[in-house]
């Protein structure tokens, strides 16, 4: 008897010990930069978390609390120079250190930043910028047209190995400079000390956004043609010179970076004297907020358990806004089972996407049905919402000729079964939650699906380089202009390593994308993209899933922390104040 009890006890101890570690990493779907933004639907108001100003706030007791704003963010690699920042996070830091010719306002329209004004000419191929005359770099040197010319010429340098050559390779004279003997890029012209003109070979409505690059000073980074490595050497030595709101002080790899306010910033006063970007990990973000070691954390996953913890802290404000990204499942249109759009629509009707959003995001995400953002000027709400309808899905598949002739539970036609392999990535609660739901829903309409998990890098190669898949899921992040849909959905990009991995070759959509990118009249453009939105909603090369929320979470002692879908925390950092 005694032996039996001890045996049972031992077994239960072992089992409970084994379970303590479960429930591992949860990462969100990886998003790549680029992608046009389609807006998400309304924010779930249930997530309002407002701080109680009266309760004890540990952040106020920090040593440096009086004049320092500590922002928690994902680790940045330390590539803060405009020419080289390759991650979103380094991009944030680049934004606070450097100024660009233009930026966007709350609605996503371009407005001048360093440029007082700009004009288009030459059939909209040329942009002439009139610069402000009161901008100085941190060392007091004035910022003039030659610095603008230098910045873009540097990106065209034959020895430049960063990723922003995409901003300049469609400029006039690029090839002659990059691979030929030209001593300057003919499309970049300094007209006078404060005027510079940039000319593209083809007029495109989103060319203006290619010029949103932080201006680098020639007197600090300048080099002879072929010497682009100098910029990288200076960056690796952590030597920076910019004109932006915060002056670089120090970078501690994987730990933090520190900045001090630029008192001579042309745009006005930078309210908080010191800024520290602390690199946090999802594991300990909440603890840091709780202990007050950080004053804000950007992009907290919009999950229920986070919401509860934040609410319990009491001294935290949550600023939710629609994330500039959407998740999707890609159908391989080259597969004869998926080439019929009726089938794709049926598969979409047959999956309860709303239920998934409720379960995974607790409602804090929006259903999307087309790759255009809800807050974008290009949006139309005439799109079909493909609400879950099992009967309709069944009927559509029957009509398309897919019936279960051999009684194995899945529909078939001409010897092909509707049994798919869904390639996806490991280590993601998002995926793990979706797999059983999709399998169950599709089983009810006679479609089978097996999940095939692999590491993300491998998945990218399989999908984009080899184009060998039935279904896969990923996410795109969006920009302010719907023109970037071009490289994702135009048939020209259906090639190995192209972004059109699903193989969409639709003449009507191609035509809309081409017209949309060269159209400059806003009303006409709006109409074109509305048609595009409806066409995509009809064709359904993807099963569009959801657009999530981002939460920027701020301690109650922080004032004027304003974010919106097109303006992240760096847009108005100069207004942020900390109280003590």
């Amino acid at each position, binding site marked *: 008897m005694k032996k039996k009890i001890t045996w049972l006890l031992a077994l239960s101890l*072992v089992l409970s*010990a*084994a379970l*303590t*570690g479960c429930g591992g990493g949860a990462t969100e779907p990886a998003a*790549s*930069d680029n*992608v046009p933004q389609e807006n998400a639907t309304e924010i779930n108001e249930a997530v309002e978390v407002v701080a109680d100003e009266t309760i004890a706030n*540990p952040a106020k007791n920090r040593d*440096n609390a009086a004049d*320092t704003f*500590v922002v928690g963010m994902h680790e940045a*690699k330390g*590539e803060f120079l405009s020419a*080289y920042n*390759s991650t979103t996070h380094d991009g944030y830091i680049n934004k606070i250190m450097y100024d660009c010719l233009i930026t966007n306002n709350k609605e996503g329209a371009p407005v001048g930043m360093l440029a007082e004004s700009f004009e288009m000419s030459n059939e909209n191929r040329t942009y002439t910028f009139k610069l402000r005359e009161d901008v100085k770099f941190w060392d007091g040197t004035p910022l003039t047209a030659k610095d603008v010319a230098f910045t873009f010429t540097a990106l065209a340098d034959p020895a430049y*190995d960063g*990723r*922003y*050559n*995409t901003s300049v390779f469609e400029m006039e004279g690029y090839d002659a400079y990059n691979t030929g003997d030209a001593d300057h890029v003919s499309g970049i012209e300094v007209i006078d000390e404060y005027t510079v003109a940039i000319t593209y070979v083809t007029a495109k409505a989103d060319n203006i956004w290619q010029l949103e690059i932080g201006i680098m000073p020639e007197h600090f980074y300048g080099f002879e043609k072929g010497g682009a490595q100098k910029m*990288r050497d200076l960056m*690796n030595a952590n030597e920076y010179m910019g004109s932006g709101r915060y002056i670089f002080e*120090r970078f*501690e*790899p*994987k*730990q*933090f970076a*520190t900045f001090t306010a630029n008192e001579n910033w042309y745009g006005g006063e930078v309210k908080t004297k*010191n800024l*520290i970007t*602390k*690199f*946090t*990990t999802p*594991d*300990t973000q909440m*603890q*840091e907020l*709780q*202990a007050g*070691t*950080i004053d804000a954390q950007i992009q907290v996953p919009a999950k229920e358990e986070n919401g509860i913890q934040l609410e319990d802290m009491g001294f935290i404000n949550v600023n939710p806004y629609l994330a500039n990204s959407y998740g999707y499942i890609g159908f391989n249109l080259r597969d004869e089972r998926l080439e019929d759009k009726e089938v794709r629509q049926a598969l979409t009707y047959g999956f309860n996407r709303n239920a998934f959003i409720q379960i995974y995001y607790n409602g804090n995400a929006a259903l999307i049905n087309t790759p255009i953002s809800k807050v974008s000027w290009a949006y139309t709400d005439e799109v079909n919402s493909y609400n879950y309808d099992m009967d309709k899905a069944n009927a559509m598949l029957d009509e398309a000729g897919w019936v279960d002739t051999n009684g194995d539970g899945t529909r078939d036609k001409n010897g092909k079964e509707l049994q798919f392999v869904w390639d996806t990535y490991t280590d993601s609660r998002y995926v793990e939650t979706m797999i059983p739901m999709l399998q169950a829903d599709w089983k009810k309409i006679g479609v089978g699906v097996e999940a095939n998990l*692999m*590491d*993300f*890098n*491998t998945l*990218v*190669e399989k999908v*984009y*380089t080899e184009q060998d898949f039935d279904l896969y899921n990923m996410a795109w992040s969006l920009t302010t202009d719907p023109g*970037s849909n071009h*490289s994702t959905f135009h048939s020209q990009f259906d*090639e*190995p*390593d*192209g*972004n059109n991995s699903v193989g969409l070759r639709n003449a009507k959509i191609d035509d809309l994308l081409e017209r949309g990118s060269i159209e400059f009249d806003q009303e006409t453009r709006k109409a074109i993209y509305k048609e595009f939105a409806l066409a995509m909603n009809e064709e359904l090369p993807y099963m569009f899933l959801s657009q999530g929320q981002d939460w920027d979470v701020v301690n109650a002692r922080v004032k004027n922390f304003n974010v919106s879908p097109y303006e992240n925390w760096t847009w108005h950092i100069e207004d942020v104040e900390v109280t003590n």
Partner: protein
Amino acid sequence: MSKYILKRLLHMIPVILVISILIFGIIKLAPGSPVGTNLDPRATPEQKQLERTRLGLDEPLYVQYGLWLSRVVQGDLGKSFLYQKPVKDVIGPYLKNTFILNIPVFILAFGISIPVGIHSAVKRYSVFDNFWTVFSLIGISLPSFFFGLLLIYFFAVKIQILPINGMIEAGSNTTGFAYALEVTKHMVLPGLVLTIGSLASYVRYTRNGMLEVIHQDYIRTARAKGLNEKVVVYRHGFRNALLPIVTLLGYSLIFLLSGAVIVETVFNWPGMGRVLLESVTMRDYNLMMAVMMLYAILTLVGNLLADIGYALVDPRVKVD
């Protein structure tokens, strides 16, 4: 003895070569490449191809290996694709940080486990022994990240006497002694997690090694001869129990470096483990090869040290 060491060192060279071929083959054969995930999504397929050629990814495997080998013997570990810096410059500071964390852990773990293990063996089934048995079981079963998060919650959030993570306070400018103090303070929690994790298994190991020795005939003889119990245990017994401990010491050299990945991630400690993990996920081949070869060499050196230690400690072992 020195002839033996020399011979062993010479033997290491072909072993390292074979290991490098194996590692190189495995990581290159795995699907995925740095080009897909590391370039701007706006890049055209031509540009991606250009990048692939520039990195030499299209050459046949043996050519790529040959190029890598010829660079390495000249002391050039190559450029890290992720960091766009020479691999040496990337590894240096992180290696230092890992050593700073792991050497005290190493010393503590062995310093505690050896006397505890011996005492447990000598006083088998005593309260002391039972306590450490339970401790070991818990320590081995408890996952390190869970334990780490628990400690953070208790010591850094609830009672706030230790920092949450990192190596120094965000924005700290301390130097000299104040800096050393700050780092030490930040080392306490991750060090605790690592030490307890290692302690748990080391204590069992030494205890078992000692137990085996204690029941040997020569121990009984020594007791029968009337020797002082302390002398019997510590002079006659322990010296022989040292053998498995020396083996353990040699092998542990590498486990401390690699096993710290999880702890480094939880505590945001800027060490080697995370760098290696990142290089694997992002397919930074040069960095991966350099770090893995470093681990391989360390393992071999650890083995060699263990063997030499054996020879020194055990008079029965003769080297020639």
